[in-house]
């Protein structure tokens, strides 16, 4: 039984390129020492006005966003800072996948470690999705990590790449740290061959 079964969802479009992690979760919310509570702060400065009231024109504040699990964003999503608070916030809010034409490298790694799927769609499919969701806000996609397919609202399936190991971890619920810890012997052998180049305790 897959730990990450295929799912269907409507889309929240945010048709802007280069959405950086400072927009996803502004830095002032990074003073927390916890992973929780960030969902309410997701896209905070786009979502709320100076008085903290929701901006009605921002899509997450509209009824159409309720219960939606897939964000449709512009190119190079998640660029900038390495803060894992970005996927924590997206996941706590309720997103399980983001569709874009590309993702920043560190964001991709952070997202996959939190079971948030970065779906890289070909430009034509991405444009078609944006058009579909503009025409009909109930347009639905299906995301299947096992088959690596994104099923478009018209039923056509588009393949998307995902790191083999990350996919395995998602589907089988593999704990990555647990996996690395199984290599304790190899790590110790490496350390035996190659002592550390510095000793930070020796200052």
């Amino acid at each position: 039984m897959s730990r990450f079964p295929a799912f269907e969802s409507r889309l929240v479009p945010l048709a802007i390129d280069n959405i950086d992690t400072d927009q996803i979760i502004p830095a002032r919310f990074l003073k927390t020492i916890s992973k929780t509570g960030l969902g309410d702060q997701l896209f905070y400065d786009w979502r709320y006005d100076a008085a903290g009231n929701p901006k009605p024109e921002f899509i997450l504040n509209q009824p159409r966003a309720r219960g939606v699990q897939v964000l449709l964003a512009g190119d190079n999503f998640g660029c900038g800072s390495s803060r894992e608070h970005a996927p924590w916030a997206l996941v706590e809010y309720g997103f399980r996948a983001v569709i874009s034409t590309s993702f920043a490298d560190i964001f991709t790694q952070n997202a996959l470690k939190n079971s948030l799927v970065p779906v890289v769609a070909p430009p034509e499919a991405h444009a078609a999705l944006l058009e579909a969701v503009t025409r009909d806000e109930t347009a639905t996609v299906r995301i299947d990590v096992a088959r690596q397919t994104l099923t478009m609202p018209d039923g056509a399936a588009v393949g998307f790449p995902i790191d083999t190991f990350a996919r395995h971890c998602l589907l089988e619920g593999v704990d990555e740290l647990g996996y690395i810890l199984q290599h304790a012997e190899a790590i110790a052998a490496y350390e035996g061959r190659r002592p550390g180049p510095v000793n930070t305790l020796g200052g």
Partner: protein
Amino acid sequence: MQPPRTIVEKIWDAHAVADDAPAPTLLYVDLHLVHEVTSPQAFAGLRARGLRVRRPDLTIATTDHSTPTTPRSLPILDPVAATQVEQLEANCREFGIPCYGFQSDRQGIVHVIGPEQGLTLPGMTVVCGDSHTSTHGAFGALAFGIGTSQVEHVLATQCLLQRKSKAFEVRVDGQLRPGVSAKDIILAIIARIGIGGGTGCVFEYAGSAIRALSMEERMTVCNMSIEGGARAGLIAPDDTTYQYLCGRPFAPRGADWDAAVERWSRLPTDDGMVYDRRMTLDASELEPMITFGNNPGMGIPVTGTVPDPAQVADALERETLAKALRYMDLEPGKPLLGHPVNVVFIGSCTNSRISDLRSAARVLQGRRVSPDLRVLVVPGSQQIKRQAEAEGLDRIFKDAGADWREAGCSMCIAMNGDQLAPGEYSVSTSNRNFEGRQGKGGRTFLASPLTAAASAITGVVTDVRSLL
């Protein structure tokens, strides 16, 4: 005969602990830098599993992001920030990690203190829960930012699961003209390739203009590799590198030093290497650069004009540019020169080292900053602060009317109370001009310390060459 390898491949091969395809390579980490913002959840993870830190002797912590730059005799007023700083110090005590804490005379921005202490060495793998870890690539180290899950992995195992990146050669030849600096080189590179241009790649900077840079200038270039989408960027070590490192507190000594230099000299990329991607830039054609928009790729020569969204073919790109100009309240086709500024920030892991402070001081010496302008000068570390004070730079800044502060990230990330008010404009030597990066509603023009200092005097965006 072995096929030619890049410096990155040589470092990679020397750090591969296991290669169990289809799993990524298990890569050993030589130096793990830790700060208060991206580590508390990782330490909590260790605690929950009953794990220890595997190699506290390859780990070092400092407090920088949430850290006030007001006098150290004052308490941290923000209770949330105070908790975070205290938590870092407590975690380090519990897990046996050396920590240059809030009151330490070695405290500073994590990417400043690593090199300053001689902890960052050629051929190393260096990671930190911070995207500007690419800074350490200046020493010929493979250095990159990681998320908090990976911080936990490294604390527990000193290893990371990683895939190789593509090799992207960035060659910069020619001689920089007066008033043009390392910051302008990297802003020009990013303006050319775009903020996502290096995604999936590691930059290897090469060419005569890069070789001519000092270590501090090389750090400025490598620092902003991430702003071009590359997770890491590095420069092969040479005599400039060795001269900088020799005698630093943690650098090898005596026979160990000679052996290390011998090893390091084999690191540079072999002849005949074919890179996955390449770009070239002529340094002699560069002007001082400045950004106008909301990502570091939106840069122009300081004498240039704001681009017009109407000229952009792609609809999404057009809207992205239009949105940036609305946020920045700038008109297409207009110059940035002469645009009023409210704040000048000189600091950050990009430009807070002693040479940055010296070049800003050279411009400010004997002059006054514009009335009503707030100027923050924030040294990258306590050591730099003391050195600047020994050289009298603090007097130059104070006499000019600038605010001379304690070390930290400060207004680069605006987590510590140093921030722009909504609508304010800054000329900033930091690395990001994202919306709200320097304070909600704040507007950032990224530039070099020279341009920042020149703009501080006039109160408007200024071409430093008019003051040299």
